[in-house]
């Protein structure tokens, strides 16, 4: 199928890595909202400044699911500093590119990682990520 997505996107979409909730997460971030049609929730488990485990839940299009999945792969086992360097462009490139109209999904993925780290920092240091503010605030909060 010569669809809108690369094979890699389709692979991550059909077989997303690290899907689900993480019961012992110590950082949880959610970005996006139902109006735009994409919501990403990222769970991280940080130990000794290293992201030892990560999971995601996403409501959204193929690109939203694939970028979430790819982002989890890219930050797993990384230090917080390394994870914070993850850009949306890097996520998109790792997926062999995204259609232009779907680039915002990779931005969401980048922000989901940052939101999770922000939450972890708040919980552990009482202070969030300096300057962190996702493009769109979640409209509603769901318990997990």
């Amino acid at each position, binding site marked *: *199928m010569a*669809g809108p*997505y690369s094979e890699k996107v*389709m692979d991550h*979409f*059909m077989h*997303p890595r690290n*899907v*689900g*909730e993480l019961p012992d997460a110590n950082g949880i971030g*959610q970005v996006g909202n*139902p*109006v*735009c*049609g*994409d*919501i*990403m*929730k990222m769970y991280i488990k940080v130990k000794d400044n290293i992201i030892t485990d990560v999971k*995601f*839940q*996403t*409501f*959204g*299009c*193929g690109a*939203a*699911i694939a970028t979430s999945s790819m982002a989890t792969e890219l930050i797993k086992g990384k230090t917080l500093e390394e994870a914070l360097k993850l850009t949306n462009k890097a996520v998109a490139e790792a997926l062999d590119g995204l259609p232009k*109209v779907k680039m*915002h999904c990779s931005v969401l993925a980048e922000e989901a990682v940052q939101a999770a780290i922000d939450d972890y920092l708040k919980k552990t240091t009482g202070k969030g990520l300096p300057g962190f503010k996702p493009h769109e605030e979640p409209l509603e909060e*769901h*318990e*997990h």
Partner: protein
Amino acid sequence: MDAKRIYLDHAATTPAHPDVVKAMQPYFSDIYGNPSSIHSFGQEAKAALESAREKVVVLINARPDEIVFTSGGTESDNFALTGIVYANEKKGDHIITSKIEHHAVTECADFLAKRGFNVTYLPVDKYGMVDPMDVKKAITDKTVLVSIMHANNEIGTIEPLADIIKIVKEKGVFFHTDAVQTFGHLPIDVNKIKADLLSLSGHKFYGPKGVGALYIRKGTRIVPFLRGGAQESNRRASTENVPGIVGMGAACMIAQAEMATAALRETALRDKLIRGIMEKIPEVTLNGHPTARLPNNVNIAIKYVEGESILLNLDMMGIAASSGSACTSGSLDPSHVLLAIGVPHALAHGSLRMTLGRQTTVSDIDRTIEVLPPIVEKLRAMSPLKKGGK
């Protein structure tokens, strides 16, 4: 790749009927004259054009000189709106339409609004029905045109046209209907319902893409949309798409013969599909009217999941569906139609349209009912919206 692919997107477009394709063949390289030419090559093409025109009118009880061929539903809609409005500028500057019209109507109305005309977008009820009383209330002495679609392309709701037109004509206002989803599918009698203008598009009823028509009631003054040569009695310039028009004529003949049986058959399959999904998948609702509905339209809101991700999964299983109007894919906004009937944003994003056709079989429906639930389950498992989602 898969054994058999299942096409459930007939509202987006239909395959041309083999007899349609056959009818077109001579008009590419053999009878290729320009119908405006006086010589025999031209006159042969002209004869084919006029014969096709006679086939179109049969389906709506019109006269051949009331049909202007266009390039499709969009042009017909744009032509109707701008043509009537520009022809009646001295009379008034107000248009009434609904919130659930196809973009070919709303985008054109928006454009006219930007150029100084006034547009009222009527609301609809939760089924997508326009209330004729709302039309009555909206009409002012500046109103020149009311445009309400015959049936909605997304949710399939059939509008109470006869009642609406009765009110509109009592006020002496022109009435246009976008019948792109009903022409060739449901019986229409323009003289009984008293529509002044009606849009249709070939590729929605097994005719070719890139050809349509606008019915214009005899005596209705209209400003041309395409300007140039004197074709179509000075109402639509440009060399006529003779093969396309001949093909659409053939599609009309087939539709006339098959319409009634097809509607019955598709209604049964439609209801089977709706029932099957409702039984197998929790937390789904039917969008649109339960009975005043296109025979081939199923549109369901599936909680906690997003439409495109369902579509892609269905596509991997060989099933083609739509998550709204195909025309608006590429846009991030949820369907304006679903929002107009009060579906919340998340649910609007999670709506799935399946539109059946002449080739759809019972086993296609069975397979869809079998394939869809596990897809929804899988996506719900990864949804942050689903409580206790796992």
